[in-house]
């Protein structure tokens, strides 16, 4: 993927989430919210290889996946504000996003629980003889769920067109990998031995990331079989909510620093800045992004609240 595109698409997501963080304390976005700040590059690169007919599923930490796939920003912010114009009309909140127009089917809030759904979507695609695939995003914690394992097994048995993306940010809430997975565990090797072609890369580095995503997708399209990519990444802020929480010391200061230094936006910015024209493009892009974000927040704030009289609607489908 092109550096400039990767940078600006990631920057856009970063700035959206920073605005959410800034405004969260106003207590108008009243739902649990898990920011992707630090992890944006992964979905940006993955989505670069996808079309609208490819489907995506995600977890509690879904904003970046939704946005990178082309999900409507306005509908997402309106959803956080609990408005009628939100992507689920205020019913699902930050943890239940959907935008069928762009193929972002759904995120769900139970760890590991959207992985089998994504496999079911890939099964539909295979049955419909479609040439498209499904992406399933989840974290390192989700790989501890039996649902992850069972899903990979079935995807392999049936040779389904699915790309599993494991964003390994080393933590599940405040819990480090050591208390959850064996010392020398490689998620990549594990998935490979389940029967899914598996890849690994640093999720902060554009070139290896692009390369590995391309390889995995080529593999899926060529072999009609599943692939998994484990990507090392890091979340900059608290697990849930808008703040930094390194004062709690659950992550070693050195570790935090190493990873913040490897922030994908920082790295790309440094590289791109070498070009003298970049500053101008940057300023233009930033103001474009900021305008879009302001519009989205205005849209959300000015949108009508949903009508609780309709609360009974859609309990059953017609």
């Amino acid at each position, binding site marked *: 993927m092109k550096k400039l595109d990767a940078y600006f698409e990631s920057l856009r997501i970063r700035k959206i989430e920073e605005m959410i963080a800034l405004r969260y304390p106003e207590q108008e976005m009243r739902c649990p919210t898990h920011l992707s700040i630090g992890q944006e590059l992964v979905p940006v690169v993955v989505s670069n290889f996808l079309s609208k007919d490819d*489907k995506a*599923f995600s977890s509690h930490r879904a904003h970046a996946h939704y946005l990178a796939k082309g999900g409507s920003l306005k509908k997402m912010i309106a959803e956080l504000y609990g408005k009628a114009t939100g992507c*689920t*009309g205020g*019913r*699902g909140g930050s943890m*239940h996003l*959907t935008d*069928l127009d762009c193929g972002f*089917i*759904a995120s*769900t809030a*139970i760890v590991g*629980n959207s*992985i*089998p*759904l*994504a*496999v*079911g*979507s*890939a*099964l*539909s*695609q295979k*049955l*419909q003889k479609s040439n498209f695939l499904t992406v399933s995003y989840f974290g390192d914690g989700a790989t501890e769920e*039996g*649902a992850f*394992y*069972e*899903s990979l*097994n*079935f995807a392999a*048995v049936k040779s389904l067109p699915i790309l599993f993306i494991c964003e390994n940010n080393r933590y599940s809430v405040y819990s480090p990998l050591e208390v959850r997975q064996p010392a020398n565990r490689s998620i990549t090797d594990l998935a490979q031995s389940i029967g899914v072609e598996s890849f690994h890369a640093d999720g902060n580095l554009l070139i290896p990331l692009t390369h590995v995503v391309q390889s995995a997708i080529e593999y899926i399209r060529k072999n009609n079989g599943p692939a998994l990519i484990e990507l090392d990444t890091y979340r900059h802020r608290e697990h849930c909510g808008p703040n930094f929480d390194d004062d709690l010391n659950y992550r070693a200061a050195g570790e935090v620093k190493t990873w913040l230094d490897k922030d994908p936006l920082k790295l790309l910015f440094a590289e791109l800045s070498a070009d003298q024209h970049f500053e101008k493009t940057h300023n233009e892009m930033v103001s474009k992004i900021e305008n879009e974000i302001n519009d989205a927040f205005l849209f959300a704030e000015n949108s009508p609240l949903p009508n609780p009289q309709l609360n009974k*609607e*859609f*309990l*059953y*489908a*017609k």
Partner: protein
Amino acid sequence: MQNKTTTFAEEINQAQHCAMAEDNSMICMGLGINDPKAIFGTTTGLQSKFGSDRVFDMPTSENAMTGVGIGAAITGTRVLMTHQRVDFFLLAMDQLVNNAAKWHYMFNGQMTVPLTIRLIIGRGWGQGPTHQQSLQSWFAHIPGLKVVTPSLTDNVGQLLYQSIMDNNPTIFLEHRWLHNQVTTQGKCLPLLGEPEFTRTVRSGKDYTIISNSFMLSEALQAHSHLLRYGIECEIIEISSPTHINWTHIFASIERTKRCLITEIGHTFSSVASEISHSIYSRYYSLLQCPISIIGLPHYPEPTSYKLTKNYYPNANTLSLKIAEDIGINIAKINLNKHHDIPGEWFKGPF
């Protein structure tokens, strides 16, 4: 031709064949779906007719496979999944409750979940504590699920066909002991008809029995027995505890003023408790005797033949209770057979 006999299992089989033929996108999956036993004969011929892409066996992964079913359903595939025992499906409650039941609702009507899950309730021949649970009360407790509990051969095909064609997640609770129940083919309701989820299957003025699943077979026997004593029971079949036609029930209670509710599983916090609460809340000052609930005792099923003798209530349990409520003495029906098999055709082991 019209009068050839047909069984409950054959009707179930037929409903699946028709649904698969009707909807080209539909798939059927389940452990052993195409094995020589074809899930008690209920899935015979499906794979050879519709191919192994659409009809397939699967890994022993009840949780993820339920999720796969939901994922396929929300992306345009009609799904039917079968498990040979309800008990195995306890592994899949997260997918069922957190996803299937809530999906249409929480995504604001943007997607539907055309998924039906056949769960077979085991009984007898030492099924024991973990092969005989029914759990209709669990499923009915969760908003958004449709629960269907067939009892009779005449409508089981229609109930299954319509469950499959319905775009809601449906738990189809099928009792193992009903599979060989026979009726004449002409008596079966058309697959394409709209199911009547609350039906009067016997009319009577003296007493109302509200029942479903295998307990309805016992109720029918009790009904005949009591007729000999001049007691006319009305039997109301609840073939969907989540879609009860209350008016229908209430009309019967207004006439009979007495009622008994059968429960196929345990009774504490059950569908039967709910029905009782609803009837009482309307007619507490009209009733001539308390409402009885007859279901399983409040302990797990032991395995031994000897220990299960009185575990399942039967036609006698019902008749005696009704006679007591009405205030007459009756003899017991002579149920001269093993209590742990549905008929002499059954020789074990499963």
